């Protein structure tokens, strides 16, 4: 279990801001800090990793106290079991992919684990390459594998997918999900990308100006008028096509494109890229065996 209380005054681009948050995260949980840029998300991650000193508060991870200003405890980054994936990856340019991972582990005894990580992140063929020769998505996978190589108790992801194109983003979301299932590392994701939040996180804390303004499951936080549908999917509008009298709207749910029909009224408010909820009330879903 992760218990976080942090206070910090910052002087950001928009003038002074005070971070004042209190979060509890269960062991193995995947949560998201969601908010506009400048809301203090990255600063919170940096304080958790020990790269920024809070003004006051407390960080407890399981039995370990990482920070407690009342008791004068502040562990250095080196002594905190964290894996931090930086926004711009921060790969070591002079080391190959494999050497970047090896840098993270203490002894020589972790070769098997490194091999497994390389395989899970599809980096086996790139293991001998330097970061400069990799694409954005590949760099991100290296950063992720390197952060996990130390077997951290807490994985911190600072907008890891924001610089990637849609296809790589979707693939990396899947990989993140798999890695989380495999290792069960407690994970805090910083994001302002709703599709990521919905797909990956169990709970979300919405931040504004350094404070948590809403928290709960992604649906509780983001879908205001809750619908009482029998089944419901959230997705992203990728295309709107006008047919004879109706519109066909293509919605990306996970990795599947789903077509739905909509009237002129429905379409007026929709744009490509919008988050939407697909649900059915009056009809039972049809179930068909596929395997």
């Amino acid at each position, binding site marked *: 279990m992760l218990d976080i209380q942090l206070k910090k005054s910052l002087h950001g681009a928009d003038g002074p801001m005070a971070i004042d948050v209190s979060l509890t995260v269960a062991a193995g949980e995947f949560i998201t800090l969601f908010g506009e840029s400048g809301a203090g998300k990255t600063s919170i991650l940096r304080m958790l*990793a*020990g*790269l920024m000193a809070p003004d006051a508060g407390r960080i407890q991870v399981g039995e370990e106290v990482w920070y407690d200003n009342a008791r004068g405890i502040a562990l*250095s*980054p*080196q*002594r*905190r079991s*964290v*894996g*931090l994936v*930086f926004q*711009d990856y*921060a*790969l*070591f*340019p*002079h080391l190959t992919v494999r050497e970047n991972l090896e*840098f*993270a582990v*203490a002894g020589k005894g972790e070769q098997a684990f490194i091999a497994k990580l390389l395989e899970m992140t599809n980096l086996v063929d790139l293991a001998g390459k330097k970061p400069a020769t990799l694409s954005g998505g590949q760099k991100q996978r290296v950063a992720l594998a*390197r952060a996990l190589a*130390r077997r951290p108790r807490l994985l911190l992801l600072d907008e890891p997918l924001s610089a990637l194109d849609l296809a790589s983003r979707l693939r990396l979301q899947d990989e993140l999900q798999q890695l989380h299932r495999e290792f069960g590392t407690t994970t805090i994701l910083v994001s302002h990308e709703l599709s990521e939040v919905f797909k990956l996180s169990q709970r979300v804390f919405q931040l504004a100006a350094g404070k948590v303004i809403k928290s709960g499951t992604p649906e509780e936080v983001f879908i205001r008028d809750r619908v009482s549908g029998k089944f419901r999917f959230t997705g992203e509008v990728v295309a709107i096509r006008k047919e004879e009298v109706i519109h066909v709207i293509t919605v990306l749910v996970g990795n599947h494109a789903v077509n739905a029909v909509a009237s002129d009224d429905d379409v007026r408010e929709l744009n490509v890229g919008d988050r939407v909820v697909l649900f059915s009330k009056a009809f039972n879903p049809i179930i068909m065996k596929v395997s």
Partner: protein
Amino acid sequence: MPFDPAPLLLTFKLAAVTTLILLLVGVPIAYGLAFHRFRLKSVCETVVAMPLVLPPTVLGFYLLLLLGQNNPLSRLLADSFNLRLVFTFTGLVLASVIYSLPFMVHPLQTGFQGVPVVLAEASYTLGKSRLVTLFRVILPNMKPAILTGLVLSFAHTVGEFGVVLMIGGNIPGRTRVASIAIYDEVQALNFQAAHMHAFILLAISFVTLLTVYTVNRRYFR
């Protein structure tokens, strides 16, 4: 008159020893100036940069006073460690280290500031100490700066004249470096001998710098 290679050899020996010591001294100084904020930092930066603007004779003059026979400090060194710094090679090395300090520290300081902070932070979060991070992450990512510092220090020491004259004098085989030998030969109207030294110095300096710039461009860009 046969050509005496001793002053040239002494020059390159002095430059090599000075450059090596400067690398060891320069890395911690440049690291401190690049990454730490402390009181009197401006004073430290000024002291490091002084040799850039000071006439070498001024530096040599004060070193001579400081290290001369009548100074208690130099008497202590001489009595306890049998270490004499005036008119000796050791004294030349000390003077050269001070004189060429900015030529090592400034490129290294710029190099340190050019390595993204986030690389060091990544190393810390991966459990590596500051020292390990310095040697395995920061220094390997500023090789051009290190090379520049080495070459500038070496070249500057080769070219030094005033400080050497003040602190080392002109003792053949011990403190008589090439630049002084040239001056000496010109004074004695031995233009041919002066020319031998001068031309070899010119050629070696040119080739060294050319090699460094070529290597720098080809491998580190």
